[in-house]
């Protein structure tokens, strides 16, 4: 089946084309059926590929000659490694459920078909990225993923916030893309190839066709440039600001972006290109530090947000920080493992949040929710499972993977990172249960009308929730003593021997669980029993800290004043110089040389003289410089 891996992205692409041809008149049921079936087919093929890789190990990439440029030959193709076999299965599984869920969520939307078109294209792009055997192809799909996210985040473009968020997502991630592209091209210049295999070989032998930098420094440089791409896509500090805003898009899109596509791409790329990173101690340190900062930073912001989706969004940023940090401490398996479990429980949390939002007529403020457990038991249960998994309570999925990451951080000897990981874990447990208690327990705080209309969502929405809840419960076992660390062995079969079994520390699971329980306990005291009054804390001694967290550490504001405004002003100044000073000088010269007397004053304005003069002056400067350069004029 591995040789047919190209089928996996093909299914969503065909779905996209079919939907495109069908156009807007198509019935919602037909549209959903096409998209879901295509995604399901992709999932089935992915599972077959997965089992084959499990049995036989990964194969060689399939490459086709694409074109020849000078002395370089470029190929296109696909490949299946252990890592991307796993990714294919995860992405297609989550997408299928999100597609199904959207049927009900987007019901009656004027552009229902368009929504499914974009979703299919989005999944196609992500799958294409996953099976790419070379960095150029990765870059092409990488940009497509970005474009699709722009379209989907801005799907409700008539909402100004949605349009702004879409633009922000696109521009901010493009900053990262610039780094990525430069990194890829530098590698190409130095190694003459885009293929992973060729690049890894060159990195290993430190054999680069570049002489302006030492091979070690070159690897560090390239690794960091590629990582900058991942910073943008995976919303790491300091380019994290787009992701929380991106929840302005429809909730299923958030689920897809946060769990399966887009943000996973950054972590995936670093994991896929890990041999480059592994060759540079400095690059790994940078990655670990950025990941650690992101994990704690986003967790702290998550503590005080009142929008249900925003809290979940910051938790994504924080969890991605964990994954990146794990890669930075060479806990490769732990990172990939967390990427997988996170995909399940984060999709679950987002879809459950979507179910709540749907029931409350698109109200997202947890301050006006409460007591929904009675009305929506399935959503409540599944959200609870997702929250427990996110908090890292055994035996839920997040426990196993987060434990591995903490072990990795501890084993790396960097105590600070380890402590950061623990504190972030505490915050995580607290904020997600704050949401849980405020949403599902206590009295409803919204208006009575909304309460009367609130009801459990239909099976189209609850079935995906239940399936994801099951995965959030069991997927942690794939890499646990129960299965004898099957995932680690599976990934190692691909020949990547990085951080497989961090030495087990007997107290680690207890500490991690206790920290998480403490977070849940505090949330319980504050928002369930109300024995601690959160208002008093926020307005009392902790007020400055509360404000800092509530305003997201003012990062957006800092960017506005430190980057956006200066750039705008530089633009204005340049425009002023161009308009008045350059023009003025040219006019002066014009007066001096009597070009004004050429009789061109009949033109509607004076500009044509200016243009003529600039042309002539340009020529004079050029000739002067050239003659000076060859020594013709002294």
């Amino acid at each position, binding site marked *: 089946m591995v040789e047919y891996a190209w089928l996996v992205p093909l299914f969503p692409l065909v779905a996209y084309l079919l939907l495109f041809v069908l156009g807007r008149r198509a019935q919602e049921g037909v549209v959903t059926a096409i998209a879901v079936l295509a995604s399901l087919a992709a999932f089935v093929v992915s599972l077959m590929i997965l089992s084959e890789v499990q049995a036989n190990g990964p194969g060689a990439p399939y490459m086709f000659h694409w074109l020849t440029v000078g002395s370089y030959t470029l190929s296109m193709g696909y490949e299946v490694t252990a890592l991307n076999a796993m990714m294919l299965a995860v992405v297609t599984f989550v997408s299928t459920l999100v597609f199904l869920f959207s049927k009900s969520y987007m019901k009656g939307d004027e552009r229902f078909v368009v929504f499914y078109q974009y979703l299919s294209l989005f999944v196609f792009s992500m799958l294409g990225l996953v099976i790419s055997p070379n960095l150029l192809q990765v870059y092409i799909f990488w940009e497509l993923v970005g474009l699709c996210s722009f379209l989907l985040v801005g799907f409700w473009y008539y909402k100004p916030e949605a349009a702004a968020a879409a*633009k922000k997502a696109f521009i901010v991630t493009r900053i990262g893309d610039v780094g990525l592209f430069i990194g890829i091209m530098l590698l190409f210049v130095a190694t003459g190839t885009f293929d992973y295999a060729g690049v890894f070989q060159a990195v290993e032998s430190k054999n680069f066709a570049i002489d302006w930098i030492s091979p070690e420094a070159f690897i560090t440089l390239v690794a960091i440039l590629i990582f900058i791409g991942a910073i943008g896509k995976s919303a790491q500090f300091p380019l994290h600001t787009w992701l929380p805003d991106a929840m302005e898009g429809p909730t299923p899109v958030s689920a897809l972006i946060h769990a399966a596509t887009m943000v996973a791409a950054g972590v995936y790329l670093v994991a896929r290109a890990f041999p480059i990173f592994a060759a540079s101690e400095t690059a790994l340190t940078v990655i670990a530090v950025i990941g650690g900062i992101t994990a704690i930073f986003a967790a702290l912001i998550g503590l005080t947000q009142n929008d249900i989706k925003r809290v979940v969004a910051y938790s994504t940023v924080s969890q991605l920080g964990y994954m990146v940090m794990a890669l930075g401490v060479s806990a490769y398996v732990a990172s990939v493992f967390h990427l997988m479990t996170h995909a399940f429980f984060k999709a679950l949390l987002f879809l459950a949040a979507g179910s709540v939002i749907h029931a409350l007529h698109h109200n997202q403020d947890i301050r006006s929710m409460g007591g929904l457990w009675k009305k929506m038991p399935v959503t409540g249960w599944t959200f609870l499972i997702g929250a427990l998994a996110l908090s890292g309570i055994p035996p839920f999925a997040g426990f196993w993977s987060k434990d591995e990451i903490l072990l990795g951080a501890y084993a790396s000897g960097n105590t600070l990172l380890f402590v950061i990981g623990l504190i972030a874990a505490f915050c995580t447990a607290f904020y997600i249960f704050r949401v849980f208690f405020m949403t599902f327990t206590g009295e409803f705080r919204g208006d009575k009308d909304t309460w009367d209309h609130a009801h459990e969502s239909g099976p189209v929405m609850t079935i995906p929730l239940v399936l994801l809840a099951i995965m959030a419960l069991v997927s942690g076992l794939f890499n646990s003593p129960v299965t004898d660390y099957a995932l680690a062995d599976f990934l190692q079969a691909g020949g990547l021997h990085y951080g497989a079994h961090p030495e087990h520390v007997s107290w680690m699971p207890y500490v991690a669980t206790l920290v998480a329980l403490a977070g849940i306990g505090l949330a319980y005291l504050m928002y369930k029993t109300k024995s601690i009054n959160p208002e008093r804390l926020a307005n009392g001694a902790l007020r400055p800290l509360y404000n800092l967290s509530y305003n997201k550490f003012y990062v957006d504001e800092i960017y506005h004043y430190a980057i956006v405004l200066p750039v705008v002003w530089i633009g204005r100044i340049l425009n002023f110089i161009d308009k008045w000073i350059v023009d003025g000088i040219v006019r002066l010269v014009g007066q001096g040389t009597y070009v004004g007397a050429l009789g061109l004053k009949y033109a509607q304005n004076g500009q044509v003289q200016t243009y003529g003069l600039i042309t002539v002056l340009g*020529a004079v400067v050029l000739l002067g410089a050239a003659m000076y350069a060859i020594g013709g004029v002294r």
Partner: protein
Amino acid sequence: MNLTTGFTTITFSDVWHVMAPELIMILAGFAILLFDLFVSKGTSRRLSPWLGVVTVIVAIVLVIRNFGVVAAEGPGQLSNMLYVLDDYGNVFKLIFLFGTLFTLIMSIDFFKKNPLVAVPEYTYLLLFGTVGAMTMASAFDLITLFVGLEILSISSYILVAMRKGNSKATEGAMKYLVIGSIASAFVLYGMSFIYGITGQTNIALGGQMIAQMWMEMQPVLLLGFLLMLVGFGVKISLVPFHQWAPDTYEGAANPITSFLAVVSKAAGFALIIRTFIWGFAREFGELYIYLAIFAALTMIVGNVAALAQKNIKRLLAYSSVAQAGYLLIPLVTLGKGTNEHNIWLALGETVFYLAGYLFMTMGAFAVLTAVTREAGNETIDAFRGLYKRSPFQAVAMSVFLLSMAGMPITAGFFGKFYIFLGAINTGLYWLAALLFVTSAIAFYYYFGVLKAIFAGETSEEGTAVPKLGLPWSLNLIVWIGLIGTVGLGVFPNLFLDVLNGLHWFG
């Protein structure tokens, strides 16, 4: 390339063999001119553009036939190498002819909306202008080249001015005429130096002489080269000789603007590349640096100046200036070695990019025509809420803009990437980096238009949004543009294989 000396008789069949497409265009131009005299005004208005369309299609067929002729018999020539028939000329002529064909089709709609325009004159001037461009691609002699250049230029000046009753058109034409004439003077002055030193007007023979005399006569030869470069630079709008472009593009009717942006610019490149490759091949290692500086300046200024534009046509004008910078890079790479391999590669890059540029520019102007007419102004705001009014046009325009910006799976991405690789292949890293950085800047202003298309709303909530229709002629161009832009982006190898199979100079 053996030159026979002495007088040879030229028969019609010789001429037909080498310049059949040009002949057809010229004859049809005169036919339309006469036809206009003998039939009623209405008939002439209605039929002239169609005569033009048919002529161009016939010329396209003849050019395609010529590929076969060159493959079978080798290149042809006329009158002691005044004029040659080779695949280099053929491939450029195809670009011109398709550009003219699309211009004519777009013009059909323009004529309907502007009853004052003199249709037959417009049509034959377009045909004659294209003949000028074709001459620039095939001429092998400085004088013939110059004649081609002037035929194209003078036709273009008039075409810009033909938008009657529009003061901007008059202003744009005036500026184009004045600056264009300065440019012609520069070209001619430069040529006179070259001729004065070498005694040759044939560019290959001139090139041999230049190579022999370079050591002793370097300052004068360099002067000639640079003067020509300045003149050509105006025609292809290199910075700082670009300033006529925004005014002229803004003033001209949309079909003519797209003609200037595509055909006129491509013709400029056809002429520059042939002249410099044949005339200065051995000296190019020293001369390329001047071109490199112009390429750099053009990319920077074109893209930065576009950031400040509010008028969509001016924005596209600056974007077209920037594209000239990108297009110059393949020629610059020849400075690192004019072996055949490099030349074929550079020509492939140029032609590929021009082809992509043809599709995306024509498509963009077709959408722009419908949108700006509806809005009654040419600002970016005219595009506000286009997605609501016409999803198809909105999507199409987005594809064209993303292609200009260089988004993957469009012709623009691959074209730039190919040029980029060429630059890296020859070790021009700084220019490659600049290409990339300025393209990144470009994203920002294209994005401004995209944002208006998708985000803006033109009507109050609840009221029906008037749908924006597209006349069949514009619709056709949009579709062709879309297919070309995406086709070249997804399957670039198909077109590249064709290009690799060409016998450029025989």
